[in-house]
């Protein structure tokens, strides 16, 4: 890896990836075993299927300080449970539009199809999202309302 010196306060984005067990997680595994390097800012959360990814997870991730969220699963037609990703896609179309209107930039929320054999694509998707989030800067919208929150945190 490049040995760039980092300044102390350089912004490092926090990116959460919700991935499906059967395709993207295995794809990420392949990226690892193939020794393909990608930026380490992403934290993977494995779920059985993209159909299991409740939009509340995404809201919660942003609420708790994520700067970007990646949602990824099997290509259409490849779902381990036949139709989970089709159902998820429909939900995302609606959810994406809602978040966009409510002020969560679509640069911070990416969706992708990454199959188990696409280790290279996984690294590209992750790098692309992290670069976009890095350019957009920290996600400050929640800061103000989080500050007012004192109980149970």
């Amino acid at each position: 890896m490049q040995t760039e010196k980092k300044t102390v306060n350089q912004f490092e984005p926090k990116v959460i990836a919700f991935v499906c067990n059967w395709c993207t997680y295995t794809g990420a595994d392949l990226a690892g075993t193939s020794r393909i390097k990608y930026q380490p800012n992403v934290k993977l959360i494995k779920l059985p299927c993209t159909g299991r990814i409740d939009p509340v997870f995404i809201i919660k991730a942003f609420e708790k300080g994520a700067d970007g969220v990646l949602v990824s699963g099997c290509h259409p037609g490849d779902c381990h449970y036949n139709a989970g990703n089709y159902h998820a896609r429909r939900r995302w179309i609606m959810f994406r539009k809602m978040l966009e209107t409510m002020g969560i930039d679509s640069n911070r929320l990416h969706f992708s199809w990454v199959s188990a054999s696409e280790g290279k694509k996984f690294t590209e998707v992750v790098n692309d999202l992290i670069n976009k989030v890095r350019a957009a800067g920290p996600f400050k919208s929640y800061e103000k309302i989080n500050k007012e929150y004192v109980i149970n945190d």
Partner: protein
Amino acid sequence: MTELKNLVKSLLEEGKVTKVIGYRMYGENNTKPYIAVTPNDAEEMVLNTDCRNNLSVYLTKKEIINGGKTGIVAKGCDIRNIIALIQENRIKEEDILIISAECKGVGAEKGSAVYANKCVNCSVKTPHLYHELVEMKGSELSQPKDKYTEAKEKVLAMNSGERFEYFSNMFSECIKCYACRQACPMCYCEQCIADMSIPRWIESSATDRGNLSWNMIRAFHLSGRCTGCNECERACPAEIPLSFINKLMYDTAKEEFNYESGMNKETPTLIGSYNTKDNDNFIQ
């Protein structure tokens, strides 16, 4: 056309239904929900332009729907909710008897001279699913101002930071009374996600953060299901314009999928079905 009172009376006398959910007068220019169980109760029944409540919410309550066929007085917009409940297998069509009328629109509030916002561009003034038809009473009112288009243009002109601020300010008035949820005929989960404590997805205290996530999730859970009856907004004691975000999701469903909930009991629900050719251009 039969008079509502006579119809309800005969239905109850003949035992075709065990109860009829309807309206009765409550002061001047106001009505309240009323359930008639004996033929004598039918005397109180009314249907006029002051019948604002969406009674289909009662069909989601087991204690009301159980024990024989239920009659319900429904306007076109309420029938949409009944159809949506049938679509979602919440109720069976054979368990209910819909008494409807050619709708004249309802007033915005008690003694109001304008129509409620939901009556603007209403496409179901002529009921699309009913078993009995009666006459609706009341005089003509005037059209209200179109607040939705105005607000939509205002929001779309903002950047994302401003939008976030706008909505978090709007929802900061929320006191988490969940009146919107209770009034909504489509919010029928036995355990709401907002009540789950382990893990607690939505903060239960009425802080800005919890308010925002509750209102986001509420709007999302109703996307593609909301029929725009605006009962949530009417029930809201903090006067949050909830219909704005609901209408936005309604329009999205219409643009993306050409889907309107509660129009046809045969079509599968939007979120419960899929098409392999759905829009894919936002996915990498």
